[in-house]
């Protein structure tokens, strides 16, 4: 954020996002950024102020987590519908109750229909790179949508990891100048923004927004590709690992992707044809890329740190299932809920998922669709 030097940042503290805002406040105090930093009185006001500044033609950023994101919920829809290219970093954390400050992804999954682009990061390096990419994606003339950069609380937000920084000039050149399409402060061309729509117009407005989000998929990929060409680090919208000849695969996102890859390597040493698929872009959902990656797999599990009470499975599971069905891929798919509220998801637990998948691949029979990893008392 220091290198991006946004025009306006409005934020409210919440664990484990606080480090971001505190560090940024230091940069403000030291004069290392030329940002108008608004310390608002709630997350609802944080995103509201961001909407005001973005509508006024200022490059705008914020950061939040969990309850804070939930408090923003109403405004998330308005941000996207008003086509305001705000970049928000969300440090994934469990939702109350019981109160828990540790990591899971139920918070941002709950915002999946708000119309934001959602990108999930695996490492600190990826968070850094994705945040810079996020500016380009959000402000792309054909996108003009808010972007949420998601990272696992504490696991990534409070970890010590090697990070390769770009130079300030490289970042500045890559993101370029902000050319706002909506400008409330253009006094010569006054606009009315956020008007009401009756039934004869509302539907078309919402469709136009949805259409733009769908079209954003290729722009996300293109920005990542350009970033990769320039700086040698690209991530794709999905990242398949040893999946071409895999019989069993685990699909996941965020920091779990790295652990899963580690497990895949160990299983491969044992001669097990294991693979994995990391989903980086969750909204818009990359239906074709996901189905293509899994087309030869016999059994797969979606491993996610989220819970959707009453649903057939959490959000990612439902989306992957839909993608496979849509594209005619016949892999047997099960769901694994894991790591809620910061519970550790060690390699040995992920190994058990692969064992389960091997059984399914051998018998061709799914014994249980919705599964809970390392849950005490679960039968």
């Amino acid at each position, binding site marked *: 954020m220091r290198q991006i030097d946004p*025009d306006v940042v409005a934020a409210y503290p919440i664990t484990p996002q606080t480090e971001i805002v505190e560090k940024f406040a230091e940069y403000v105090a030291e004069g290392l950024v030329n940002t108008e930093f608004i310390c608002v009185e709630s997350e609802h006001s944080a995103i*509201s102020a961001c909407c*005001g*500044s973005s509508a006024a033609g200022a490059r705008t950023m914020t950061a939040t987590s969990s309850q804070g994101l939930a408090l923003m919920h109403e*405004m998330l829809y308005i941000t996207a519908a008003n086509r305001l290219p705000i970049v928000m970093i969300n440090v994934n954390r469990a939702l109350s109750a019981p109160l828990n400050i540790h990591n899971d992804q139920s918070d941002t999954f709950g915002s999946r229909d708000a119309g934001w682009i959602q990108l999930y990061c695996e490492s600190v390096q990826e968070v850094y790179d994705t945040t810079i990419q996020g500016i380009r994606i959000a402000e792309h003339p054909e996108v003009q949508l808010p972007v949420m950069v998601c990272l696992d609380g504490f696991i990534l937000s409070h970890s010590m990891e090697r990070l390769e920084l770009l130079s300030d000039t490289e970042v500045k050149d890559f993101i370029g100048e902000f050319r706002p399409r909506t400008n*409330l402060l253009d006094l010569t061309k006054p606009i009315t923004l956020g008007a*009401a729509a009756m039934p004869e117009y509302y539907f078309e407005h919402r469709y136009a927004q949805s259409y733009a989000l769908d079209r954003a998929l290729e722009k996300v990929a293109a920005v990542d590709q350009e970033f990769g060409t320039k700086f040698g680090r690209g991530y794709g919208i999905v990242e398949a690992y040893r999946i071409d000849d895999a019989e069993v695969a685990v699909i996941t996102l965020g920091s779990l992707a790295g652990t899963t890859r580690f497990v895949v390597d160990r299983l491969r040493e044992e001669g097990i044809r294991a693979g994995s698929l990391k989903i980086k872009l969750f909204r818009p959902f990359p239906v074709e890329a996901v189905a293509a990656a899994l087309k030869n797999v016999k059994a797969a599990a979606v491993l996610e740190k989220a819970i959707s009470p009453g649903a057939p499975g959490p959000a990612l599971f439902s989306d992957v299932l839909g993608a496979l069905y849509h594209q005619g891929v016949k892999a047997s798919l099960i769901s694994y809920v894991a790591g809620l509220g910061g519970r550790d998801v060690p390699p040995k637990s992920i190994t058990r998922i692969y064992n389960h998948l091997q059984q399914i691949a051998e018998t061709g029979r799914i014994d249980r669709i919705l599964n809970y990893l390392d849950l005490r008392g679960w039968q």
Partner: protein
Amino acid sequence: MATLKELSTREAKITGGTRTCAGCAAPIIVRQVLLAAPHCPVIVNATGCLYITTAIIPYSSWRIPYYHSAFENAAAVASGVEGAIRALKRKGRLADQEISLIAVGGDGGTYDIGLQAISGMLERGHRCLYICYDNGAYMNTGIQRSGSTPFGAWTTTSHVGEAQKGKQQHQKDMIRIAAAHGAYAANASPHRWRDLMRKVEKALNHQGPSFINIQSPCPRGWRYPASETIEIARLATEACVFPLYEVEEQGEKWTVNYIPKNKLPVTEYLKPQGRFEHFFRPGNEHLIEELQAETDRRWNRLLKLAGKS
């Protein structure tokens, strides 16, 4: 301040043909506010009657920049707009000209759901004028009580029946709340348009946050004929139910802008309004007594604060 003749030549920045009810005070107030704005006005509007009657796709009544986002956050959105103005001027991407940034909300969006955001805006010292057009209830959703509904008034969520006679509580004192933040704060009325416009001009030239609460009589919700709006507003100031005053110098300087020669009893203000009809039924005399007592208490306190008693 401009003369009436000069004002008559200024362009109206909100057009006619809004979808407000006949006799609604809100567009009158907005017209007065915008005529008084010393610089280019930019409006941030909370959800409410004013928004829903002036900005419906594919029409807009606004000839100036206008942004609506939600019900409770006009002050927060305006804080962001002000932040953008500062940042963009500093970076040379916005011409160095004065902008009259005005946030507008009804009493629901101000006294109740929007209070937190207003407190934040005032505390942080954004250069923005927050205007409440105060019609004393949630008129847009069908006359439900708000923190600004007067004691005893009928609304669709404070009915008059055997067990309850209208609203049970007195109004929240928004001016004192705003003044406690150190902001310029004032009460104004569309019937005293010159006083209103002077306050708006003063607030918008003030190098900090400001808050003006403007009484906005509502023929639908208050149950009086549409032609009586300005007369009702006049009676409110004559009965000191809605006194005109301002608070400056970090809440230290209180000025009463209008002291009626013959202060009317509250009944003169209540009588023409259907929402107070039950005040005049036998057995309900205590309602009049209590409202009169509270009105007098607040008026006398105001005179004391202003050094007039």
